[in-house]
């Protein structure tokens, strides 16, 4: 069983933020082979980890952080606007009060079986979608593997923002995309994904404090 916590950077204690940065380094740099600048001492932290950044955190029963992702507003500088605008050649970088950017969607595979990884990935998708819908966010942008784009298309109304770009770091094509986040997407996610929805997940709180250790 896992549990979710969604908190802003300003609400998360410094030692917990460290765990997030270290998990992201482990997955993105060590597992995926990303060549990230400014990664020091086994930490992936950049200028987009801000007090107003929203973090989706997933803990296992033993309180280990097993997955995380982050959401940033697009009215402020974010990954697509500052680092990857060339991925948005169709009509520029989308910005707006009701558009957020999702990034660093990582799952610690070492601690989970394949089946658990798939389940967790889908549960995180649901958690993020429910949270942004409840927050009045209509669209989410992201930059990810072409294969994730393919998965996204079947659940969310997803549109590419530019052509795929190949990166040698991990020999993958990456696509920037924008997807609609609404109740229909939540419904489709449940319809197309066959996992055992627990009561807890059905009632997944859109915001909750981490349980006491």
């Amino acid at each position, binding site marked *: 069983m896992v549990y979710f916590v969604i908190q802003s950077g300003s609400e998360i204690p410094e030692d917990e933020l460290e765990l997030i940065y270290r998990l992201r380094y482990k997955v993105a740099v060590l597992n995926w082979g990303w060549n990230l600048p400014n990664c020091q001492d086994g930490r992936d932290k950049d200028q987009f980890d801000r007090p107003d950044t929203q973090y989706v955190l997933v803990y296992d029963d033993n309180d280990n952080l097993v997955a995380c992702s982050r959401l940033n507003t697009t009215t402020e500088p974010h990954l697509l606007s500052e680092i990857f605008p060339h991925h948005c*050649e169709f009509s520029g970088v989308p910005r707006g009060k009701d558009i957020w950017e999702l990034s660093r969607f990582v799952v610690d595979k070492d601690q989970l079986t394949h089946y658990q990884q798939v389940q967790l990935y889908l549960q995180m998708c649901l958690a993020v979608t429910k949270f942004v819908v409840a927050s009045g966010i209509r669209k989410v942008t992201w930059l990810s593997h072409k294969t994730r784009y393919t*998965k996204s*298309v*079947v659940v969310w109304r997803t*549109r590419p923002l530019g*052509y795929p770009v190949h990166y040698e770091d991990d020999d993958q094509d990456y*696509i920037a995309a924008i997807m609609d986040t609404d109740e229909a997407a939540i419904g489709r996610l449940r319809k*197309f*994904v066959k996992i055992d929805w627990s009561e807890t997940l059905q009632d997944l709180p859109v915001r909750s404090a981490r349980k006491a250790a």
Partner: protein
Amino acid sequence: MGAIQYLELATTGLETIDQIEETTTPKDVLSVYFGFVQNYGFTSVAMCQLANPHLLQDPASQIFISTWSEEWGQHWWTSGYMEHDPVIQYLLKTRKPFSWDTAYRHASKFGRKIIDESREYGFTNGIAFPITTGTGPLGCASLGCDDIPEDPKVLAMIELVSISCYMHLVKIKGLSSEYGLGHLSKRETEVMHFVAEGKTNWEIATILGLSEESVKAYLKNISKKLDTVNRAHSVSTAIRKGLIIP
């Protein structure tokens, strides 16, 4: 192509994705999709789900749309060509678009016969776009033409439209993401393919350029994923689930 043509390409591609998502039948999906790719010189399309042909109770239940002639389509299905078609076989080896010529070069003798025969039905050249979700191929879009467009942006847009087209068909068919392939990684699928052919670990290691220990590790992982107890059980389960085509 100049900047204006690229803008048109992007606009047309995105509009086509919109139109595809408004359709409610495979026939309408095919009409919109074919209308789009015809702009770039393609003369035929086939979009096919990768599945174990021996397990298909009803071919109509799977994802398959094409502009093929009824005669060729019937011949392809009834002759069991799905199992040996070089384009489908090559899907197991790559996640990048590939030409029919490439598939032909890697084909078995019987596979080459299929492509040779298809030429009699007017197919000359073409390109296939694998539809993958990271853990393995789901299917492909295979487009026929005389000359494959050389512009990478044209091919990239066709691939994006193809992805939307395939996944919209998944929605229309009401198939879950667990339907078809997708549980084994590309390398695991390759290993299982050779295991099913009766190869030893040493032979598989030699063919794939791996160590014997790596092959054992892959088999162990496959066994965990499929919840199987031995090599034979893994093969039978993989075939039954349509993860490999025997």
